[in-house]
């Protein structure tokens, strides 16, 4: 079985109001060292048996089509093989 981890984050340069709010909250709590926060989404997908290369290309398609909005979001996929 293939386990895929998909990270969707706001594109660089796109306003991230959630990230801004979390940044301010952390700084208010005394964590002045925090310089930037980006808030995104994490998704875990379980796929059936298929070759890794094929899994990767299909996952990229899923991200482009549905999981992320390429206009405003970047995505990154990690693939792991599990038994």
């Amino acid at each position: 079985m293939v386990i895929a981890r998909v990270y969707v984050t706001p594109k660089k340069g796109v306003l991230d109001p959630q990230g801004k709010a979390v940044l301010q909250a952390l700084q208010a709590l005394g964590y002045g060292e925090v310089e930037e926060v980006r808030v995104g989404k994490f998704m875990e997908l379980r796929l059936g048996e298929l070759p890794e290369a094929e899994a990767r290309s299909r996952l990229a398609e899923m991200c482009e089509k549905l999981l992320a909005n390429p206009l405003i979001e970047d995505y990154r996929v990690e693939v792991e093989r599990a038994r």
Partner: protein
Amino acid sequence: MRVGVIVFPGSNCDHDCAHVLREVFKAEAALVWHKETSLRGYDAVILPGGFSYGDYLRAGAIARFSPVMRAVEGFAREGGLVLGICNGFQTLLEARLLPGAMVRNRSLQFICEDVHLRLENATTAFTRAGQPGRVYRMPIAHAEGCYIADPVTLRTLEDTGQVVFRYCTPEGEVTEAANPNGSLGNIAGVCSRAGNVLGMMPHPERCAEVVLGNEDGRLIFESLLGRLAATSVAGVTARR
């Protein structure tokens, strides 16, 4: 003359739109289930507000894959009139029928209140009964209404008159303070290059009756129905 109001799972302004069309304007309106694959017989289509698929993932992201959206795309390509209100606007953006995207409001909160809008383009089928520069009062009700687009797209929108409404003060000034959600250029509504697809965050169907204390939303329905009446008369004439 028949207007279709699309019903996605989670749409919740579908009945409101149908009510205004039927009861206020005595027009024919039908609710169109999202699994329909054809829009034959409709003269215009409205994608109503709501929380299609719970707004899970992103507002409109899942609805845009509903079977009916294929038909909406074809309808729009052939010049059919498509109006997306609030969640409907978000869905049109996700479907790339309109340029740009929506992110969460600057305040991170859901905002429901009346806003003022300056009409920037009174030539579209949805705004032709209005006057450019006039200020309208309509309510917004959304959490993801901050409109963004890349600089090139934005410039194109401005140059081609695709910005239809902007948030403004009651006097019509486009200011930062009058921008409820952080939208670039105070954009509240945009149309397609051909002008036959309009997306807007404010809800005209909520302010089209005197009993509710505000009739500014009539602009949209009067324009739309007026255009449909005109084209159907023209159609009849041509066929003769």
